[in-house]
């Protein structure tokens, strides 16, 4: 079965994975993006300390017509991303333990013609913080050994009285992350 994927950026898929973690009740979400041009790999991973899945649930999640919710839509996010990764000589793997959390890892051949652009990761991070400002988001982006780290737990400790979803703070965050990620590609 071929699913029609309307996502335009990998960062849209990344947001979709973060949404899953938030829905699973995670209080900490670790996001890692790794780009290695010499190894021709682009991979990303979202790990959380949410409710986790048992083996049967992990099997089912690859199926486009299964969702943990009994009502409303079917869960299409993971099958879509897995299909996109496999089309680019990569794959998607879920590791999970009930009560401990879930990690979803995806890889792509970086130079593959069908690989979606990574896109606007800064907006994805801002959307996630707006959703649940008290969740610790740790973002780690590596490009050929250069690294950008954004850790909201640091901001949360600095801000205490002020939730991070204040519009001015969200705007700052977007500019900060955009700038930091852009620098990864300049190599200076």
């Amino acid at each position, binding site marked *: 079965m071929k699913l029609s994927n309307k996502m335009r950026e990998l960062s849209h898929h990344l947001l979709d994975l973060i949404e899953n973690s938030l829905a699973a009740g995670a209080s900490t979400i670790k996001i890692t993006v790794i780009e290695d041009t010499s190894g021709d790999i682009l991979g990303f991973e979202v790990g959380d300390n949410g409710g986790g899945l048992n083996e049967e649930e992990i099997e089912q999640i690859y199926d486009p017509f299964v969702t943990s919710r009994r009502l*409303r839509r079917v869960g299409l996010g993971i099958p879509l991303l897995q299909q996109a990764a496999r089309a680019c000589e990569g794959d998607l793997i879920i590791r999970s333990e009930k009560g401990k959390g879930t990690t979803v890892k995806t890889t792509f051949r970086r130079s593959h013609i069908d690989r979606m652009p990574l896109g606007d990761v800064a907006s994805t991070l801002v*959307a996630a913080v707006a959703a649940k400002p008290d969740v610790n988001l740790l973002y780690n982006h590596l490009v050929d050994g250069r690294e950008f780290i954004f850790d909201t737990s640091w901001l949360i400790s600095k801000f205490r009285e002020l939730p991070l979803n204040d519009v001015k703070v969200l*705007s700052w965050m977007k500019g900060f992350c955009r700038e930091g990620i852009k620098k990864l590609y300049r190599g200076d």
Partner: protein
Amino acid sequence: MMKQIKSVDELMKLKEAALEKIKERQASGKTTIVVGMGTCGITAGAREVMMAIIDEIDKRNISDVIVTQAGCAGMCQHEPIVEVNKPGIPQIVYGHLDEEKARRLVLEHVINGHVIEEWALVQRD
């Protein structure tokens, strides 16, 4: 265009200013804007809609608005969906939005308090 804030010092100044505004707003009711961010919403452009709303609110210096998100509401065909809850006027669920419509929504509904009826999917009194 507003200057981008890059340093931590500037961020801390921002924090103080935001705390002041929180005190001010506590007397009056605040507006909440909820963007649908399920897989269906993301695919239809919900993240871009949310960024346009945040940007417009930031540029216009409106302080009594909270932008947040919800999952799929089962109306996937109408995504991107945004719910606006402003005290004193009916709660409206808007559908089929894009960045441009989102910016107009901030101006017309959030600032001026006028419901844009042709984009409204649901009205709750």
